[in-house]
């Protein structure tokens, strides 16, 4: 007969419970020998699996085979230059890249960005941020960490995103901090901070800036999108709120970001 708490103990071990439940479960395990044994077993199994079962890297032949296949798929017999970030055609319309080196760069970039939906021209990235904003408005998609406390949201990003963005609560100015989320952009796990302003949500994306440039302000599918940079971080705010309301938050964040930099 197993202790009724064993699922909760397992969830605790797997890091799936919040801090309050964790304390609760730790207290329980102090009293329950069975759950203590379970925790020991979980730890030793994990250790053994991670030590003995790791297969390491995929075979190089397989890597080469897939690279060749994707080259063919991209319709270019060009050698793979995917490791190099293509900057060549950054500032040109991509349809100029019909021939020669630019075509190869395009293929290379397709490979490079194959699994990170970010893409090297601003159009798709713009679509991505807007799509992410829309998706976030669906139930249970808004935030992964729900908190109005920036001291909770900011550290959460340390384990979930590649950047540490400005997180502040501007409730006094009408922009309430709702929480945070991680999303994939520009080959990185971007941090997303969500603010509520009246009936509107504003998603603020942050990732490490590349040489790529964005329009400061633009509208896509009816949503207002503002880009700005602070230091090496690229910020982007998306919302259906009016321009004035979006820009007021942008100003607050930009000031806070610049204070952070100093």
């Amino acid at each position, binding site marked *: 007969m197993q202790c009724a708490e064993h699922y909760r103990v397992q969830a605790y071990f*797997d890091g799936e419970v919040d801090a309050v439940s964790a304390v609760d479960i730790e207290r329980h395990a102090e009293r329950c020998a069975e759950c203590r044994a379970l925790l020991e077993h979980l730890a030793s199994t994990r250790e053994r699996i991670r030590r003995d*079962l790791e297969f390491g890297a995929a075979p190089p032949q*397989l890597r080469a085979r897939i690279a060749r296949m994707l080259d063919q798929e991209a319709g270019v017999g060009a050698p793979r230059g995917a490791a190099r970030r293509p900057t060549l055609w950054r500032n040109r319309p991509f349809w100029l890249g019909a021939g020669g080196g630019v075509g190869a760069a395009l293929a290379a970039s397709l490979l490079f960005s194959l699994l990170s939906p970010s893409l090297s021209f601003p159009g798709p990235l713009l679509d991505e941020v807007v799509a992410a904003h829309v998706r976030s408005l669906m139930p249970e998609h808004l935030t992964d960490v729900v908190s109005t406390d920036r001291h909770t949201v900011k550290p959460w990003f340390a384990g979930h995103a590649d950047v540490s963005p400005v997180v502040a609560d501007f409730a006094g100015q009408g922009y309430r901090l709702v929480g945070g989320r991680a999303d994939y952009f520009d080959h990185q796990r971007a941090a997303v901070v969500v603010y509520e302003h009246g009936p509107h949500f504003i998603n603020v994306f942050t990732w490490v800036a590349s040489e790529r440039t964005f329009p400061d302000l633009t509208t896509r599918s009816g949503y207002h999108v503002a880009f700005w940079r602070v230091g090496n971080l690229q910020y982007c705010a998306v919302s259906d709120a009016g321009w004035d309301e979006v820009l007021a938050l942008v100003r607050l964040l930009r000031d806070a970001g610049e204070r952070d930099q100093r």
Partner: protein
Amino acid sequence: MPHLDAAHRFARWLSRSGSDADDVVQEAFLRAFRGFDGLRGSDVKGWLLTIVRNCHATALKQQQRRAAVPLPQEDDEQFSSAPTASTPDPESASTADDDKRTLDRLIAALPQEHREVLLLRELEDMSYREIAAVTRVPIGTVMSRLARARAALRVKWLQETPGEPRAVR
């Protein structure tokens, strides 16, 4: 190619044979590439592993259809010897290798739905939610499968290695 290693690991444990795994991974990358727009979430790794899993299921069905010819049984030999590294002094190496082989075999013997949640959790360090997305089952099912996989492994491990002192009952 991000996540190729993870895709390969996962395919290998699903198919339990190196060459099948390679084919599955290649097919998965092709589908990922062609269906690039199919990615709707932010979890690229989970998305790719889902495709790997689908490709494996398809390959398995094809194999079963061709099963009039008896399939070569999973070659334990090649499977368990491949990942072992250099062989240091024979004494200690053999016990360690025995343990590794036992673990390989026990995990390979788990039913697939248990094996996959266990490996996604322990090797890929994925959250319940991410595992649920890849295996297309509710989070509660992920939890119960994980618990059952771990318990089965514990029981079998104790049966296989009776000599070893264990803190557990």
